[in-house]
């Protein structure tokens, strides 16, 4: 604000000794700035901060909507203690962990493949670009429904293709292991396209001259990939990995649509267990304790993510 500084420096310095650098005009701007930030923080307070407080309080209560006559007495860490001895909680946590372990690297590898394929000099760009955008724009739960239809035992495309190729039909969706595989395939298909879009943007920033120089030095395509593409793409890959991890902690829609956690509870995720505890069993106290435990894991992942991305633009700047 050069105009403000040149017109009113002396007055401001004399009047406001503790903030000598701010002129009245600048203080007005600061006030306006805080005013403009207010709606965002009021919305966040109402939709996030207040609910967090309520979540933590409820997690220390006995609070079952099926037993309203019991009231909501304070029970200390009882709900948390219950979680630690609840095998279904540990199983759901283990399943969630397995989904993260398989689908996050899976989506990044498939996404990298798609990005490399899409990074070609196509004359007509829209089929490729839309081919990456469509899976992203599709609701997760619809992807789940479509893949459930693919993996349907007798009329599904997958088993019929297997039979046509001379293999036996597999019990997708009714056997715990096959159901896990089917769900992972659906998740990877759905999430890899967003990863591909992010990596494709990264690929397009790699200077072409690097490849030209490598070509002159006689580097093979394979060497160029390992020595140029991958190192240059590393920041984008790390961002994609962390971003995918944070969202996969909350995996819900696709298993819900494909198996609803079955057979038994063998494909149930933590998010699905929390949802069932709260909405179907109406046990708000226990559901809240589970949500707090999940939140702690998410915070650790998000903190890592923010720390990385805040450092990253600075590195890229020069």
């Amino acid at each position, binding site marked *: 604000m050069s105009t403000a500084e040149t017109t009113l420096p002396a007055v401001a310095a004399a009047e406001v000794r503790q903030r000598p650098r701010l002129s009245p005009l600048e203080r007005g701007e600061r006030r306006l*700035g805080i005013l403009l930030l207010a709606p965002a923080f009021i919305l966040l307070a109402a939709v996030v901060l207040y*609910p967090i407080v309520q979540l933590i309080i409820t997690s220390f209560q006995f609070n079952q909507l099926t037993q309203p006559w019991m009231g909501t007495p304070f029970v200390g860490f009882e709900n948390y203690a219950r979680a630690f001895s609840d095998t279904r909680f540990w199983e759901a946590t283990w399943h969630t962990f397995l989904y993260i372990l398989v689908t996050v690297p899976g989506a990044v590898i498939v996404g990298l493949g798609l990005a490399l394929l899409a990074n070609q000099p196509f004359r007509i760009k829209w089929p490729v670009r839309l081919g990456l955008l469509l899976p992203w724009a599709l609701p997760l739960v619809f992807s789940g429904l479509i893949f459930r239809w693919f993996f349907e035992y007798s*009329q599904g495309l997958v088993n019929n293709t297997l039979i046509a190729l001379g293999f036996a039909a597999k019990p997708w969706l009714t056997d715990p292991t096959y159901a896990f595989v089917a769900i992972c395939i659906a998740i990877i298909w759905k999430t890899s396209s967003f990863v591909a879009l992010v990596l494709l*943007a990264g690929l397009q920033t790699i200077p072409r001259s690097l490849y030209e120089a490598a070509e002159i030095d006689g580097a093979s395509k394979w060497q*160029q990939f390992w020595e140029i593409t991958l190192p240059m793409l590393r920041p984008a890959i790390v961002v994609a990995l962390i971003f995918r991890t944070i969202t996969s902690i909350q995996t819900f829609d696709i298993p819900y649509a494909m198996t609803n956690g079955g057979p038994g509870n063998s494909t149930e995720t933590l998010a699905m267990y929390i*949802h069932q505890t709260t*909405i179907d069993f109406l046990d708000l106290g226990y559901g809240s304790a589970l949500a707090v435990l999940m939140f702690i894991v998410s915070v650790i992942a998000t903190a890592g993510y923010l720390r990385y991305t805040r450092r990253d633009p600075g590195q890229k700047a020069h």
Partner: protein
Amino acid sequence: MMALPKPKKMVWLAALIVAVNGFFPALWILFTSFKTESELMRIPITIWPAAPTYENYVRVFTDQPILTFLFNSFMVALLSTLLCITVSACAAYALVRLRIPAPNLVLSVLLAIAMFPLISLMVPLFQTMRALSLLNTWPALILPYAVLSMPVCTLVLISFFQDIPRDLENAAMIDGCTRLGALWKIVIPLTAPGVFTAGILAFVNAWDEFLLALTLSPRVSSRTLPVGITLYQGEFSFPWPIISAALIVAIVPISILIAVFQDRVVGGLTQGGVKG
């Protein structure tokens, strides 16, 4: 890589793989939606509908209130997008132009709060909305959806606001415009593409959301499309031809939206994704 001449056929193959991977599931659903129930029972299965029928589409609109689902989805997505854009634009402008103390810290705090996992918010939001008798109403979804898209919208808008030269606003203010006047008359029109990009992202996010819609708006007459279609139950089994037709009805509007604005969507996504 672009500099190296590639055999044309390989390039086409690459394009084909990416396109088929993206389009095939939706195409398969499209084929299914034109098949009769009896054709679906046939083994081996058919690829093209043997006798295409529109009956599934008729039944989608007669058996289930899909128009209600569409209307709910559209209004919730639209209103939450408007709210999100307004709030994000104000915050982004304050962070870029006005002398907020520690703008980077404020932005980090804002992003960290807004990225709180939905599944953990689900329990207290259910409690609160129930206490306020807001379950099964649009506001119950509009407010959380506005927060859901706040990080990406704020980041996209910040990068667009940064590209507007300060001198333009200063000139307007010298001519007697107020700060807010300059924001409204100079900055917003110049960054219309950014506002629009952020709006599309927010709209798609809201259109796609399932968990909160399932939790906070479960009554049939207030369901959004994802919930309405997923909880669609046939009399005997899951009616795949009708489900497929319903999915096509739900997918087409959003596909047209992203097809028309694909450049902006890709730009906004990679900006928001890489930075945020």
